[in-house]
């Protein structure tokens, strides 16, 4: 059954307004609290059975294999919806349709955090972030979003118990006295209110960076909060959930246990873990804006936390400015360091050599400074790689398709 709630006064489609936190009619301006809309109003709507894409159009390509066709309750137009979508918009009349039986059949979300950031606010926050970005190209600062979609993402909120035993490797000392050391750590920790993205199509790295959400703002789930937005149900199995929780808990355990070991370059060389997930996991929907724009022929998709406004993603950078600044600063710093080294280190060393039998070689100084320079360059490369990886993630087809392959 497809549900499209219509205004009681004029019959036009209604949508949820994040600013008012109410369901409003864009035609006559009537507004109601989502929980005040009677379920009898929804039941008046047309009941339709979903027909698979293949049944309607015969043999189909792989990307449509999981698609179903519904009829819009408002205009009778065709609504195409994929296997995990719950709400979408009719491409013909713009009405939001909620696949009501999909929420009922799948485990219905218990809680939802309604959007509190509007579409305009989401774009404004990105513009604000870009304006502070030193290496954001001018064309991107003046970007025009090619698509902005508000999507409720399904999350499992998990409590649990994680146990792990591990061997940590590190190094102590420097130069010739540098040596590798190992330690063993084992223990358990509780997991509290861990949000796990329940949508396989969205990468965990992207969804984790959207955190934190303020769970005190959870309200009991009502499908009217979905009006005007897209949404998906969970397509995660228990095993997927276990793996996601185990991975996240293990990262947390390892980070905390490494803090108890005094060494450099620490890493876990061997670990074994077991995670128990409390059976009272709860299922919730959390709001996220997906904003896409094109730059140099590539699609870029940024995410905005629909509750806090936190902007997540990698932005292409101005390479000319980056390299010009690096060369300029290198020249400046090189002159300063060369002057300092010559006058305060090498010259006094040469002077001391004249009056002493034990000669000191400036070669050892080059070695020391060379090592320091190498460490700084390695850290810098790691940072640059992090930025590049984030940009690749924002330009990946999977995140673009997750947002784009919806009607409306």
């Amino acid at each position, binding site marked *: 059954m497809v549900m499209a709630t219509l205004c009681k006064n004029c019959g036009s489609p209604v949508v949820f307004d994040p600013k008012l936190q109410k369901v409003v009619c864009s035609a006559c301006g009537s507004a109601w609290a989502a929980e005040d809309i009677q379920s009898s109003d929804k039941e008046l709507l047309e009941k339709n059975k979903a027909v698979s894409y293949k049944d309607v159009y015969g043999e189909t390509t792989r990307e449509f294999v999981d698609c179903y066709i519904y009829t819009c309750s408002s205009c009778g137009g065709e609504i195409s919806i994929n296997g995990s979508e719950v709400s979408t918009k009719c491409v013909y009349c713009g009405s939001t349709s909620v696949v009501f039986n999909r929420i009922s059949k799948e485990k219905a979300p218990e809680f939802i955090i309604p959007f509190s950031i509007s579409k305009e606010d989401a774009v404004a926050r990105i513009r604000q972030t870009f304006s502070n970005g030193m290496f954001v190209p001018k064309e991107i600062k003046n970007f025009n979003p090619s698509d902005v979609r508000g999507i409720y993402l399904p999350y499992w909120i998990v409590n649990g118990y994680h146990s792990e035993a591990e*061997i940590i490797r590190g190094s102590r000392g420097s130069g010739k006295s540098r040596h590798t050391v190992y*330690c063993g750590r084992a223990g358990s920790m509780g997991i509290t209110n861990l949000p796990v993205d329940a949508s396989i199509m969205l990468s965990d790295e992207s969804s984790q960076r959207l955190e934190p959400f303020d769970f005190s703002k959870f309200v009991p789930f009502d499908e009217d909060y979905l009006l005007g937005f897209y949404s998906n149900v969970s397509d995660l199995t*228990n095993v997927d959930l276990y793996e996601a929780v185990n991975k996240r*808990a293990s990262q947390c355990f390892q980070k*905390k246990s490494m803090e108890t070991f005094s060494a450099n370059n620490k890493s876990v060389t*061997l670990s*074994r873990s077991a995670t128990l997930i409390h059976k009272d996991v709860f299922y919730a929907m959390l709001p996220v804006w997906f904003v896409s724009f094109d730059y140099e022929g590539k699609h870029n998709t940024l995410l905005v936390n629909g509750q806090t406004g936190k902007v997540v993603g990698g*932005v292409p950078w101005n390479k000319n400015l980056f390299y010009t600044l690096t060369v300029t600063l290198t020249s400046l710093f090189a002159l300063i*360091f060369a002057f300092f080294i010559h006058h305060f280190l090498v010259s006094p060393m040469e002077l001391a050599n004249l009056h002493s039998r034990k000669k000191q070689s400036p070669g050892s100084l080059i070695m020391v400074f060379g090592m320091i320079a190498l460490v700084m360059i390695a850290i810098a490369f790691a940072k640059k790689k992090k930025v590049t990886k984030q940009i690749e993630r924002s330009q990946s087809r999977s995140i673009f398709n997750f947002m784009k392959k919806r009607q409306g």
Partner: protein
Amino acid sequence: MDFLEIFTDLTSLLSGIGLGFGCAFLIVTGLLNRSNNLGDSVSDDDSISTGILFTSQENRPGVNVFNPAAGQIYVDSQLANIVRSREYQEYSQNALDTSKELVTRHDLEADNTSMNN
């Protein structure tokens, strides 16, 4: 200008260029990370977990040859002890039914490096 003078000047210049490039590159990539890597943070670990209650903290400083077999015995026996504990058994009574397989992560490359030490 004798050889020694040229050598000291060259030493200063080379060290200056190396340190200068290292410093400049570090600063510029730091600025790039702040400017173009948006939302580079996740939930604070303390907000999603209680503190760790360690059952074993074995420090073996000075041991610079890692024995993978001994390491495996250590992690297996320690985890087995935890799984047998009363807290774990009590928690498992209320646990969600999943595959509950133990997960082993083994950094083979690191072990090979260590064994060559």
